[in-house]
């Protein structure tokens, strides 16, 4: 622990050493005008170069990303597959079309690339035109009876055989 007078002396020594540094630095400092003159040219060159490198890297990344997205968008949709019953034979085939009845048809061929995606877009079903493949099972001989209102004196004939 320093005595107060020792403390003051050491602070004075430190201050004096710093002042010698200050004098030497003042002698070697460039002038204000020189400092201002040197700057703009130097600064912008380095900045431009760094910006160019960053821009080239960004372009490469964007091109790679666009290519990756294109490849993913060109993939074909899952083709229609026949449903297989417990016995192993196909029972029905789901076909998405433009209002035609169900019950048959083969999955259409898948064109490559962009044509594939257009064909796939066309094959997308319209919910309003979809018909159930098992619709026939819901028809019965008594459909006429169920859909009409009987009147007094009028007899509804029910066919005995399935049409």
């Amino acid at each position, binding site marked *: 622990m320093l005595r107060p007078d020792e403390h003051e002396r050491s602070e004075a020594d430190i201050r004096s050493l710093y002042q010698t540094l200050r*004098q030497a630095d003042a002698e070697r400092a460039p002038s204000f005008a020189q400092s201002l003159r040197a700057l703009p040219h130097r600064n912008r060159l380095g900045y431009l170069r760094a910006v160019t490198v960053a821009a080239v890297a960004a372009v490469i990344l964007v091109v790679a990303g666009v290519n990756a997205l294109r490849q993913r968008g060109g993939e074909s949709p899952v083709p229609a597959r026949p449903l297989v019953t417990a016995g192993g034979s196909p029972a029905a085939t789901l076909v998405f079309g433009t209002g035609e009845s169900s019950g048959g048809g083969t999955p259409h061929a898948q064109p490559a690339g962009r044509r594939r995606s257009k064909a796939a877009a066309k094959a997308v079903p319209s919910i309003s035109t979809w018909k159930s493949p098992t619709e026939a099972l819901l028809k019965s001989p008594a459909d006429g009876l169920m859909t009409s209102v009987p009147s007094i004196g009028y007899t509804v004939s029910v066919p005995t055989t399935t049409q």
Partner: protein
Amino acid sequence: MHPDELRAQLEALHRESFGWALACSDGDAARAESVLQRSYLKVLESAGTSSFQARSSFKTWFFGVVRNTAAEERRRWIWRKLRLLPQESADAVASERKPAEQSLAESELREHFRRMLGELPRRQREVLHLVFYQELTLEEAAVAMAVGIGSARTHYERGKKKLRAMLEKEQVVAETRRARA
């Protein structure tokens, strides 16, 4: 602040600013000039929208700008090493300007003192420079360093203690040599 007024203030502070830039650049004169020039550019280009709001003195505010610019310059040095930025040392206005006349002993003493300061941690070195070289108060030094007054005081006391110990050791060594001679 008006651009002309700003320029006048910067010119008045130029020598002290160079000394501070030198301290922030570990004594490298070429880097110090680069730091000072970039600081001038930052301040002059944003003259109309200057962030100086008279909460502190112009000197402490500008010294804060120089300090931040020196930190950026240290990071740029890393990029330069990786060859992504061009070398700028050749464009330095005056990298190794020496004082006109100096005695060898004085010059050696100065260099020896600089080496001792180089052994101190950065924050301690900065606060001692601001207080003893730039003759700022501890409060002003804290503003320039963007630290709290408590932190500044801690760095100041620790730095002074370390520096004193180094000077005493040097004095003992010098006296021992004198005694032997």
